[in-house]
């Protein structure tokens, strides 16, 4: 088995007087930089009656700021030769740019300007409300399997509003959002002390720090909100529900299990991460072989941790999810039985020779591959610092994965028992 190389990206961490945490990672191999600002608020923190608000607010952060008219943020990034975006996650919201290195200061200014004061107006809110509704139409309402399972499974698996609600939002809640809501949300959650700024790529550390100080240090300090625990214990009895999809031509299923706290029980958690790889990553994996190739019960099957497939994107609680599409609407119980049988086999008899090695090797090489693009690296650094308090994980993760043993994987398989799972069946209402 090949030796898995560990990355050794240089990085340093700093905190400004207003509480903004900063991660710098110089790498001068290409004349490009990545800038990311992550705020410690995601859709789990939005209030009842305001589903989808964290995401709607993300849109408002692009609508102009202290010194910038509407449209100027986009134009300044792109006319510098760069790209931008933002996204809303369960536990955080990110804003980011990839830029030629000569636009570093400009990029820092743009992020600082909206951390200082975004331009939240009635007109911008009304416009972005329509844009977000169209985003939901194109990604959820007007397509087969739209939002499946991330919008619908949490409602079966979890009990509290924070974990169970639709993070994209219902149209009625979105339409009820006001400018005052947005101002309150900004004042409460978008404080420098509630954010991490990461900058990576072609930069000199001292120069970059001076520029960050110049643009961010005088943003007034406001306390970071205290974040409640959203933890929910594992289920003790299985749950089952259905979701009607008017466009889907064939049924699908999503099975979710609450999994160990990534912080409280990191070994158990990484065991579950490796288990997901063993089950469905590649044609040699257990469930691809059993469900797709041998028994031909499903057309595809995937397993993953984290709402959107990134296992280290969330704090407790997070989810182990299995999804599959299957042509025979009567086959669901056979599929679930086969999954149970495979997990039981793994728990009782362990792994085949070389099985864990090859999966760890591939996962380690995939992690390295994701770090090649400067923007991905920047986002990973910021995420590891914000969610786990440890940007260094960018270098440490491969070794942690290499240390996961067979016992950890077997324990993870034991934990995915039938009585702890939530099953959501997608009922296909579309034409075949």
């Amino acid at each position, binding site marked *: 088995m090949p030796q898995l190389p560990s990355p050794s990206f240089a990085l340093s961490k700093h905190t400004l007087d207003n509480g903004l945490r900063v991660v710098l990672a110089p790498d001068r191999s290409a004349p490009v930089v990545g800038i990311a600002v992550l705020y410690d608020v995601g859709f789990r923190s939005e209030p009842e009656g305001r589903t989808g608000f964290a995401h709607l607010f993300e849109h408002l952060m692009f609508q102009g700021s202290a010194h910038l008219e509407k449209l100027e943020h986009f134009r300044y990034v792109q006319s510098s030769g760069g790209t931008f975006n933002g996204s809303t996650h369960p536990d955080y919201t990110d804003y980011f740019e990839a830029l030629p290195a000569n636009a570093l200061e400009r990029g820092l200014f743009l992020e600082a300007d909206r951390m200082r004061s975004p331009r939240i107006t009635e007109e911008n809110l009304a416009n972005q409300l329509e844009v977000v509704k169209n985003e939901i*139409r194109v990604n959820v309402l007007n397509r087969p399997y739209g939002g499946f399972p991330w919008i619908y499974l949490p409602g079966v698996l979890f009990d509290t509003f924070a974990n169970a609600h639709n993070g994209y939002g219902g149209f009625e809640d979105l339409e009820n959002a006001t400018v005052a809501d947005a101002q309150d949300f900004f004042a409460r959650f978008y404080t420098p002390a509630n954010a991490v700024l990461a900058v990576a790529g072609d930069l000199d550390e001292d120069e970059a720090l001076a520029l960050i100080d110049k643009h961010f240090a005088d943003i007034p300090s406001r306390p970071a909100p205290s974040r409640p625990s959203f933890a929910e214990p594992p289920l003790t009895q299985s749950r089952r529900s259905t979701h009607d999809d008017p466009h889907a031509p064939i049924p699908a299923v999503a099975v979710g299990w609450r999994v160990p706290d990534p912080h409280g029980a990191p070994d158990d958690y990484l065991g579950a991460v490796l288990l997901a790889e063993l089950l469905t990553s590649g044609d040699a994996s257990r469930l691809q072989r059993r469900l797709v190739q041998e028994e031909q019960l499903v*057309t595809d099957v995937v397993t993953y941790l984290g709402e959107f497939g990134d296992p280290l994107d969330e704090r407790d609680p997070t989810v182990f999810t299995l999804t599959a599409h299957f042509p025979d609407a009567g086959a669901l119980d056979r599929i679930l039985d086969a999954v149970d049988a495979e997990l039981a086999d793994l728990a009782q008899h362990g792994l085949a020779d070389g099985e864990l090695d090859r999966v760890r090797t591939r996962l380690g090489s995939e992690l390295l591959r994701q770090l090649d*693009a400067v923007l991905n690296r920047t986002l990973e650094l910021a995420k590891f610092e914000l969610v786990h308090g440890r940007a260094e994980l960018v270098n440490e993760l491969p070794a942690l994965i290499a240390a996961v043993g067979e016992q950890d994987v077997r324990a993870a398989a034991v934990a995915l028992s039938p009585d702890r799972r939530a099953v959501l069946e997608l009922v296909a209402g579309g034409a075949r």
Partner: protein
Amino acid sequence: MTASPVPPLTEPRSPSELRLAERTTSTGLRVVAVRRPAVPLVELRLRIPFLSAEPGHPARADLLSDSILTGTADRDRAALAAAVQALGAGLDVGLDADRLQVSGNVLATELPELLGLISTVLDGAAYPDREVDTERSRLVERLTIARSRPGVVAAEALSSRMWGHHPYAVDLPQPEEVQQTAAAELREAHRRFVRPDGCVLVVVGDVDPERVLDQVEQSLGSWAGAGPAVDVPPLPTPVPRPLLVINRPGSVQSSLRMGRPALPRCDERYPALQLANMIFGGYFSSRWTENLREDKGYTYGPHSRLDHHSLGSVLSFDVEVATDVTAPAVLETYYELGRIATLPVTDREVEDVRQYAIGTLALSTATQAGLASTLASLAGVGLGAEWLVEHPRRLKEVTVADVSSAAADFFRPAALTSVVVGDAESITERLAGLVPVETQA
């Protein structure tokens, strides 16, 4: 007036020159290897011409692409996948309008081993009957799922309307054709088409380029022969026709697709057309996006793009708009098309997209994967790595008049082929008040 608080750009830094080696092997395979040691990995792209006008070819091509990794003379499907995974590697096979592409990535130290596994596939993919049966059923289901998406239906209709009976008219095979395709036909198609003469292999990563050329020659040496001569006629010129309305009852959005022939990357007017397209709808700060999304809120985002195929390039437009604003969105789209086709663009617009085009080319080729994909697609239309240096230079020389002239020639709304998929009952009458329409149930 106070000075802008927005910091100016500092002196740009140039990327370092590529360390590249290139060779055409004795079997006719063109190999391009580039050193890019940022992470200890290697990316590879092998492009195999696969275009044909033979009846049943689209179904054979898709099923072959799905089945090629399901077993070789020595390894069954799971054993092959396990061997790839043990190298820290990934291997995928995909298909576009012109070719089959094998994409891989691997720990740099294991490149020779991955090349060896790829060689066993190119030389000895077995297409076991049982595996092909599995993949055939899966492909039929996937095609059904694809066609339940309105954007896929609209894109298929546009290709068909633009290209008539030409092979480019077919985006996806029909399920009935797939059902009738036997494993033996795949073995025959593999024997005829999967041949090195005329193929390009690009390898980018933490490697010594010269050594890679030797490794490839050694590993793929037994793979020989040439594919069949291309039997495909030139692309026809689309004839403008009314806007085609395809009914999707109850659709909460309408999917508009438009297209027309464009210029290839080697054309001297291409840089001007590229910039005109960005100004129109090719980036977020475009006129179309600022109007339809940021002013009107009709859509999550419109996009226009230039795609390059071996027989011709295409300028295309796509947008999904809320059902009740379909006609107003088409009106604004025609307004923006007419405006850019009849009035000059501005200096500021051209400067903005010039920087965007140069900057994003540098960003997209700053990774191993991005550089490998870009070099492979350039090679597919006969262009080499020097294009990455020469093209920014050409972009710098484009004038406002060049861009206005390209816009006048390529964005005239009357010359576009257009289709819309949506709830016909809600949208047709108002659309028919704007442009000639034709309906299809």
